[in-house]
């Protein structure tokens, strides 16, 4: 049996969080989700199931979406973590217009997954959006609003790339 938390030694973890260097003292078995929410005040990331099934707590670790409820915080040592707070609201017009959010509890995770797809368009050569979004459970939308919104996010991104070019 592990020691009760008030008798444990905390450990120090340094990571890059939303582009900034952060050092945080955590309990050895602490979940990244709890560190973000309760120690660092980044409450945009939500807990849905606590067992890696629903994707509500999705954050990006070194550019890859992970369920932050399954990541011990020490594993984020020296890594780059991005949370929903890093997402530029102006990018999300398509998801707003398509009805991609209803109750909003799954939404931050959905947006993190959507942004990952937008940044890795090569995924669409082998997978559909419907397949790529299957790690994020939503109980409200029936997914059509989400799929349409992600497609819109991709289209908006392409339009912007075009302008840049």
């Amino acid at each position, binding site marked *: 049996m592990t020691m*009760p*938390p*008030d008798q444990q030694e905390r450990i120090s973890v340094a990571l890059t969080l939303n582009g900034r260097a952060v050092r945080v003292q955590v*309990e050895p078995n602490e979940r990244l989700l709890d560190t973000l*929410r309760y120690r660092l*005040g980044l*409450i*945009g*990331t*939500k*807990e*849905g*199931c*606590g*067992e890696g*099934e*629903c994707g*509500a707590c999705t954050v990006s670790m070194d550019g890859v979406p992970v369920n932050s409820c399954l990541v011990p915080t020490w594993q984020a040592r020296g890594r780059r973590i991005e*949370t*929903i*707070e890093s*997402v530029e*609201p102006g990018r*999300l017009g398509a*998801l*707003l*217009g*398509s*009805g*991609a*959010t*209803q*109750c*909003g*509890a*799954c*939404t*931050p995770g959905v*947006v993190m997954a959507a942004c990952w797809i937008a940044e890795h368009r090569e995924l669409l050569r082998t997978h559909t959006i*419907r*397949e790529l*979004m*299957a*790690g*994020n*459970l*939503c*109980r*409200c*939308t*029936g*997914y*059509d*609003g*989400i*799929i349409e919104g992600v497609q819109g996010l991709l289209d908006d991104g392409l339009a912007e790339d075009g302008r840049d070019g």
Partner: protein
Amino acid sequence: MDRVEGLAKLTGRERYVDDLAIQGVVWGMTVRSRCPRGRIKRIHFGDGVDWSRFVVVDHRDIPGPNEILLIERDQPVLAGDRVRHVHEPIVLIAHESREMVRRAVAQVRVEYDPEPAYLDYRLPPRPGQIQFGEDNVLKRLCIEKGDVERALRGAAHVVEGVYETGAQEHVYLENQGMVAWVEDGVVAVKGSMQCPYYVLNAMSHALGRAADEVRVIQAPTGGGFGGKEDYPSNIALHAALLAIKGDRPVKIIYDRGEDLAATTKRHPATVRHRTGLDRDGRLIAQDIEVILDAGAYVTLSPVVLSRAIIHAGGPYACDNVRIRGRAILTNAVPFGAFRGFGAPQTHFAGERHMDVIAARIGVDPVDLRRRNLIRDGQSTSTGQVIHDGTDRVAVMDRALDLSGYRARQREHEAFNASHPYLRRGIGLATFHHGAGFTGAGEVFLKSVVHVVGLPDGRVEVRSANTEIGQGTLTAFSKVAQDRTGLDGESIVIAEPDTARVPNSGPTVASRTAMVVGHLIERACDDLRRILGVDADTRGQALRDAIIAWHADNPGREPVGTAQYRKPPGIQWDEDRYQGDAYATFAWAAYVAQVEVDLRTFATSVTSMTAVQEVGRVLNETLARGQIQGGVVQAIGWALLEDVAWKDGAMANAQLTNYIIPTSFDVPPTRVQFIENPYAHGGGGAKGLGELPMDGPAPAIVNAVAAATGTEATTIPLTPERLMGLVLNDDAA
């Protein structure tokens, strides 16, 4: 118009109960029964814990009656001397460390004298299992029209069928949660909920406090589906008791396992049909029996049963109907409100039965429905004459056209004849859903809405109705904008806080946009009356009038008020269960296509078409989202979501093995609305939130039956269940 709070949700800035920063808050947790029925002998608090560092509450700490006030008062806030289900709350514990409180909960051991638990509502109870009346039946209801027995004797065909539906978990993505604190002698809670005044009444009762010594605030709520209709009274009282005893703010947030196992679920149901038809396939007699498992306490079961039986006859005309319903007390976790509220269960049975009838008497399922769909001037089972101008056959035909029903049928026939192991099928369901409270419910509620002119000329809508994802804020803003001519920036929707908003009734029963939306319109008109301006004063002129009123009446505010009035011509006889069961119905026809793999017996839904008449559509994106979301929740109920019971407990209380659909498990849902404005609904709207829960399950199972030639009667139609049906059929 985009969702009002949409960007806050997309960016993670919306503040749900677990996101609230509260100074000095401690975490509360619940010690629950592990015994489905028994007397509590002793409670041991383990030696390894310094209990003086924890707040500990049991039933003796409840200041008022130990009762959760709802329809009945049978459910205790905390178990006293006995338990009636395996997740009954017994002791509450709080501490500032969540991990410490978890460990403490594990160190509490309850000793029981077990009593015989009654766990299968389908079997008659043995004498030792009787816990209510003579037979554990909590509620009986009956609808009678004409003479069923005589009509059955004269029928050309009599077709019988028995249908079963399982429990279903809501799986709102935000678990239940509540914070409680005491401030200036007022016990306040804020949390995830649908119905602030239900919570207020329950708290006032059990805490022995006047209504103004209790305050309830809804926090943005991450989904409800009925799961946050009645249950939040429990968790609010638990948090409040800990806050009172510990004299510190308390937060209780369930984790997913506790939420799945301990909170209410959809009532399991058994529905028996005995149907008489004439030679032309016209319904001449419907004899229906509806049995619900209510679980260990009454909760909302009597009204779920009521809605279940009223919808049991389907959207058809029939002169001789008898529908008998009963809700049975068992020692399962109490079942409660869930989107559709009994109607999905009886519509599953009724619409599946229509296809069984069609097969037995050798008519086409579409023609059978075409012949029997209710026409204007005909009446429902309760004798409610329908005259709303909706062409229900046209609704069905639109769904058939959009889905390419006939062409798909022909393709499937050819495909199934040639494919070694895949089978395709298409299925239809036509159905209705009564909007708003049943019978005289809305009259008893006497809902009130306030529309207030603010000093800067904006208008604030004050109601107790909650945004739970379905779009209340956007719908209310839209209705108020249309009525006042003000823009969205000038309409404020008040936070549901019982200290500030009147009781506009619960956020349930697809009533919010329709009933409360209409009250907002009338309260806007009343505001004009108070301001002393003409009925056509709109926009800037209205703004100016509000500002001028404030200048003339310093320190006061102009409050437009509207209270519910029964639409003209509505009559309901509660004793005889006759009359206008609902002010109006929404009508729908859904078509599902499936593909069944005879190697794995897995069913995939490959296409869904949903056509409905829901009055006027207030916001196309939001309305479509409600339909699509309901359809997918119903696909889960039909095929995937199987609550595994063990000694009255949910054995699969994890999303790892209680499976809800992912995006990859479902097809897009093609949605079409046929608009027929409803004069007494906000902006002409009828209720639509629950409707999409009713049709998909029977459409899907009808499609599976068409694909495989089996007579499936039970959902969830899991691969295991379908395998049994297909292999048994082959053997026979």
